[in-house]
């Protein structure tokens, strides 16, 4: 496992380095470290997070929650500087008009109903009764909890508690949403609805920072990923860009289904960037490992045009979060 950072991929990544973008439209970490006594939380983190869905990926104890708590002012950095769209996290009066945080903590004030929980939170914003009431019902509707609104939170199932926390995070319509394992405890239907909601919110120009262990779901919704291990950021940016930076160490794998894999294998094996070719047992496909995806696809297109092969399908086999996670963090992670 390598702890070296993978640099930003400028042409394809939509983010920029901290100094290159205005503070007011990025979530910025500048050389941020957090130590809990002798224990490292995160170390020397530099990020400039753009709008869209950014997923934090890493094993337990890698620093995902610390990063989120730093961003929301629940813990203070030991070193470095943070700004959330230009707002310092130690100014809660401004910060939490812009930020909503769905924490991992599964505890609620005693004896409150779901409605009272959200209503009390909105009154803390200084909103009046009518406005608070309206926003509560809007949020409850978005997370499909209207019918359980007047039941006590203590009587909710795990999935319902997760949804009411999500409702609290979104009820004041923040621009930045920080969601710590928001899919935990949700059934498949609720997960699909939650992910649709995240996409909808991101499409509206919001910033969503999500941590998750469920990598195949992360893969489906993320615009960017931040990979962490042992408190260090080991990769960041769009997943394809991150993957392409790793081609020397971990050659890219491409899965091809075609009518003549033998001919294709013979041609591409002459290229110096191709590391390995495996023909499938059914002789209708092959798996190519290459250190230069661009050159491989150029050659591949030429062969198709020349009629050497007839292609059924072609797709990258390891250009997803799970593969990158496996390469960078490996078996120490507990992600699924």
């Amino acid at each position, binding site marked *: 496992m390598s702890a070296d950072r993978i640099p930003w991929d400028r042409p394809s990544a939509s983010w920029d380095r901290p100094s290159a973008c205005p503070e007011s439209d990025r979530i910025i970490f500048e050389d941020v470290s957090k130590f809990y006594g002798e224990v490292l939380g995160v170390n020397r983190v530099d990020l400039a997070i753009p709008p869209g869905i950014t997923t934090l990926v890493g094993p337990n104890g890698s620093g995902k929650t610390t990063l989120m708590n730093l961003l929301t002012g629940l813990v203070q950095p030991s070193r470095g500087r943070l700004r959330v769209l230009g707002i310092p996290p130690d100014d809660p009066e401004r910060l*939490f008009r812009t930020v909503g945080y769905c924490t991992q903590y599964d*505890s*609620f*004030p005693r004896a409150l109903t779901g409605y009272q929980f959200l209503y*009390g939170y909105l*009154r*803390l914003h*200084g909103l009046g009764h009518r406005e608070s009431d309206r926003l509560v019902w809007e949020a409850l509707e978005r997370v499909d909890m209207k019918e359980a609104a007047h039941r006590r939170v203590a009587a909710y199932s795990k999935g319902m508690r997760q949804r009411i926390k999500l409702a609290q995070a979104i009820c004041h319509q923040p621009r930045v949403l920080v969601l710590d394992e928001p899919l935990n405890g949700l059934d498949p239907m609720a997960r699909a609805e939650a992910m649709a909601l995240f996409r909808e919110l991101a499409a509206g120009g919001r910033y969503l920072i999500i941590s998750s262990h469920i990598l195949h779901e992360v893969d489906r919704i993320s615009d960017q990923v931040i990979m962490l291990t042992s408190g260090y950021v080991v990769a960041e940016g769009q997943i394809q860009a991150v993957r392409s930076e790793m081609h020397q160490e971990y050659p890219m794998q491409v899965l091809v289904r075609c009518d003549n894999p033998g001919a294709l294998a013979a041609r591409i094996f002459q290229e110096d960037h191709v590391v390995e070719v495996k023909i499938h047992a059914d002789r209708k496909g092959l798996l190519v490992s290459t250190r230069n995806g661009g050159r491989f696809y150029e050659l591949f297109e030429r062969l198709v045009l020349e009629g050497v092969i007839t292609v059924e399908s072609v797709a990258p086999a390891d250009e997803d979060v799970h593969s990158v996670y496996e390469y960078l963090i490996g078996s120490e992670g507990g992600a699924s």
Partner: protein
Amino acid sequence: MNWRLWWRQLLAILRLEMRKSFSGKRAVVIYLLAASPIIIFGLHALAVDRGWSRCRGNEDWAVYATSFQLFYLRLAVFFGCVGIFMNLFRGEVLAKTLHHYLLAPVRREVLVAGKFLSGLVAAAVLFSAGTLFSFLLTASHVARLRNQEFLADPLVGHLASYLGVTALACLGYGAVFLMMGLLFRNPMIPAVAVLIWESITVFVPPLLKKISVIYYLESLCPVRVPFRGGGGSALFAISGEPVSAWLAVPGLLLLAAALVTLSALRIRRLEVNYGAE
């Protein structure tokens, strides 16, 4: 300075906190502590009414004054304030619910003020009720004994003093335990230390007596209770002149203000890290 917003947020915090203060298992203990003098003097009034005990007029008032200063203030109000004020923050940390407040757009100083105010209202309401009803129970049978008007002069003044002292006790002890709840991971140890200090102030020189809440409270009580310790301990008691109300009241108010300010400074550095608790 957004005073209007802070006022609305203060009211929102009060609304949330009052519900917690007056309900739940912990509140039952506070109710019992607040009701303890009502139970004691109610039983005494019942005994007098049934002829099992005699009402001795002035002696009953002396017993009331002694019980108010040595039991009610030093133990019932003290432990009631421990239960209410220490849990304003420490209780939320243990229940892992403090982050709900810290994730709202509320200045942490406003949060401290709102929580302290809610604790103060709850404590003052409950313990003043204990003072009021226990006083009225004593007054009723003394009035019957003397065949005089209920709450004849100077009893109204005494009642007002006892109520004022109760409210100031809640304020003073409340501010002390609010700060302890924020400063210490296990605030029971410093609470016991304060209890011991408040109990031994009778033996310390006058200058040191001034570093205690009870000294100012006793100075404000309408009836002075001489120390009558058993086992010869009275020999070691050092009497101190009571402080005038003009010094005691502002002194307690200033002490409370200073401690709440320190709590507000402390909470600015507070981190939510329940795992470490």
